[in-house]
């Protein structure tokens, strides 16, 4: 990452030479193919910017056009017309609930795994196996994870997590099931950021703690965990943005009921967890022409709200990484993406 900052060309940029006049050679002497490539690279970069600007502006325009406070604060209604189908309060709450469940499961798992791998990691082969396991999860398509969730929560062993019909079949669909699968989506980014953070903690900090007579675990609690707090924050934020953006898991594991429908007769909290519902993403899907509801305007409004969340999370990641003041920006970009 420091390679970029000390990069000769970026240093040239910073001193205001500008990219068009390269080091010592005028563009006029360039070959056509080189000029073409330069042009193409600029065009590609600007195309990306243009696409992003178009998306943001278009969603913003649609959002302002269709979003109204009563959409956010009213519950979805069963109706065949766009006017009568209510708002997306439930999906909004559903998104938050799933995020909380997913992070509550993923964060401890990811942090503990990262700690074990970096600080203990014995036997070595087992550590590699765990690392590759998490890498496999990271590469697994979300629809496969969703179907895995369906398979595992339909087992009678896990029937407590969803509803059981009178005939004895387990539905396997509930907030708990969806949240558990969401944690698999959020786990890899948290794991990777925390692991990388731990690896960059200088070893003299550990040695100093050991010298003071601290045990390994005490060092972890008093020295390392506080040291990687910002990594944990970044990882969790990335995990959250994975969760709120996911659609396939919600559609498969929460069903297409737009209202949060707790398990009837269940306890206040547990009933909701065992019940069905929706999130912003599934609301958008259901209300788009691909789904059932046929309310594209509401889909746009919900997508606008979702985009606001995404933008906010992006800002948070950026804030944290700037506070960390350790990179020029795109290393975190990579962390956030892959």
């Amino acid at each position, binding site marked *: 990452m420091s390679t970029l900052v000390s990069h000769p060309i970026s240093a040239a940029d910073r001193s205001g030479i500008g990219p068009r006049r390269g080091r010592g050679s005028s563009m006029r002497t360039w070959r056509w193919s080189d000029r073409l490539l330069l042009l193409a690279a600029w065009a590609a970069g600007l195309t990306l910017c243009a696409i992003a600007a178009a998306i943001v502006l278009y969603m913003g325009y649609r959002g302002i056009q269709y979003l109204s406070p009563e959409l956010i604060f009213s519950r979805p209604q*069963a109706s*065949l*017309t766009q006017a009568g189908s209510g708002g997306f309060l439930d999906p909004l709450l559903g998104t938050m609930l799933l995020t909380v469940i997913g992070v509550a499961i993923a964060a401890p798992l990811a942090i503990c795994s990262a700690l074990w791998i970096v600080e203990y990691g014995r036997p070595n082969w087992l550590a590699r196996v765990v690392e590759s396991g998490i890498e496999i999860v990271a590469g697994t398509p979300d629809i496969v994870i969703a179907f895995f969730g369906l398979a595992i929560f339909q087992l009678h062993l896990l029937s407590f997590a969803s*509803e059981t*019909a*009178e*005939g*004895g*079949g387990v*539905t396997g669909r509930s907030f708990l099931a969806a949240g558990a699968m969401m944690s698999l989506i959020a786990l890899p980014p948290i794991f990777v950021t925390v692991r990388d953070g731990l690896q960059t903690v200088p070893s003299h900090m550990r040695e100093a703690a050991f010298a003071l007579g601290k045990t390994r675990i005490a060092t972890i*609690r008093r020295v390392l965990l506080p040291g990687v707090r910002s990594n944990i924050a970044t990882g969790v934020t990335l995990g959250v943005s994975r969760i709120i953006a996911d659609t396939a898991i919600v559609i498969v594991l929460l*069903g*297409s*009921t737009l209202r949060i*429908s707790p*398990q*009837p*007769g*269940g*306890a206040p*909290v*547990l*009933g909701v967890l065992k019940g*069905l519902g929706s999130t912003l993403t599934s609301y958008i899907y259901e209300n788009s*022409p*691909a*789904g*059932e*509801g*046929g309310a594209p305007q509401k889909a746009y409004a919900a997508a606008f709200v979702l985009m606001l969340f995404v933008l906010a999370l992006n800002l948070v990641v950026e804030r944290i990484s700037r506070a960390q003041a350790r990179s020029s920006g795109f290393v975190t970009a990579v962390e956030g993406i892959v």
Partner: protein
Amino acid sequence: MHRIRRIAASFAAVTLIGAAVPAIASATSVITISGATASFPLVQLLAHKYTKLEHNKVSFRISQGGSTVGVNDVDAGRVTIADVSRDPLPTDPTGLDFYPIAEYGICIVTNKSNTLPSLNEAQIQAIFEAKDKEWSQVPGATASGPIDLISRTSTAGVLTNFKTLFLANKSVASTAAEEPSEGALEQQVANDPRGIGFLSNYRADQGTVNPVAYNGVACTRANVASGQYTATARFYEVTKGEATGAAGKFISWVRTSKAARKIISTQWVPIKATS
């Protein structure tokens, strides 16, 4: 550190409460329903009313998926009741009880811009078997270009009925797009100026698509009720074995009570008491 421990303790507390409560919880009964997307609006209305009448002692969990999905679900014990929008088929699992609850019409629908007034059986067969491929071959059509057939996936009871009632049990041409639900089909026809499909009379009447008269009779609730519109079918509630318990009470309420008949009569036609 103290904070972390407190959080851990409160997690433990929540888990304990969570484990203790479900034992007391099952005072109300849940009726789970899956199946036809065509009868979904009706069953939802009925369930809503019934829940109110029973002072929330009963609650419903209704999902869709298509008639055949409902039949499979109820057979496998995944739901209590299946909504089915077609008559029993020989391929259905044995041991299921079909209770008819309402009659509905099946309408041919086109895009609103295509104000096709009426079709007869031969025309419908030519269109849906893809013998007529251009709108120019259909008298009265205001659309141009190829006809886009929009059908339903094979789990749909409405599709089964459509084939029996209009196509003499032949299949819709294989080029047809297949939509998983009534809503999706309605969307598709509403968005495609060259589209044609079929919907239950309630869906067709929502103002998003153009319902086409069949043999000159408009596809409306009134014409279904009077018997003038002949392409009609029934909604069933299906249980595994005789309907008992909460589900049985609900089904008999739907079939006999005045309140239920009133709801059914708004858009559909109640089954006459003799049948």
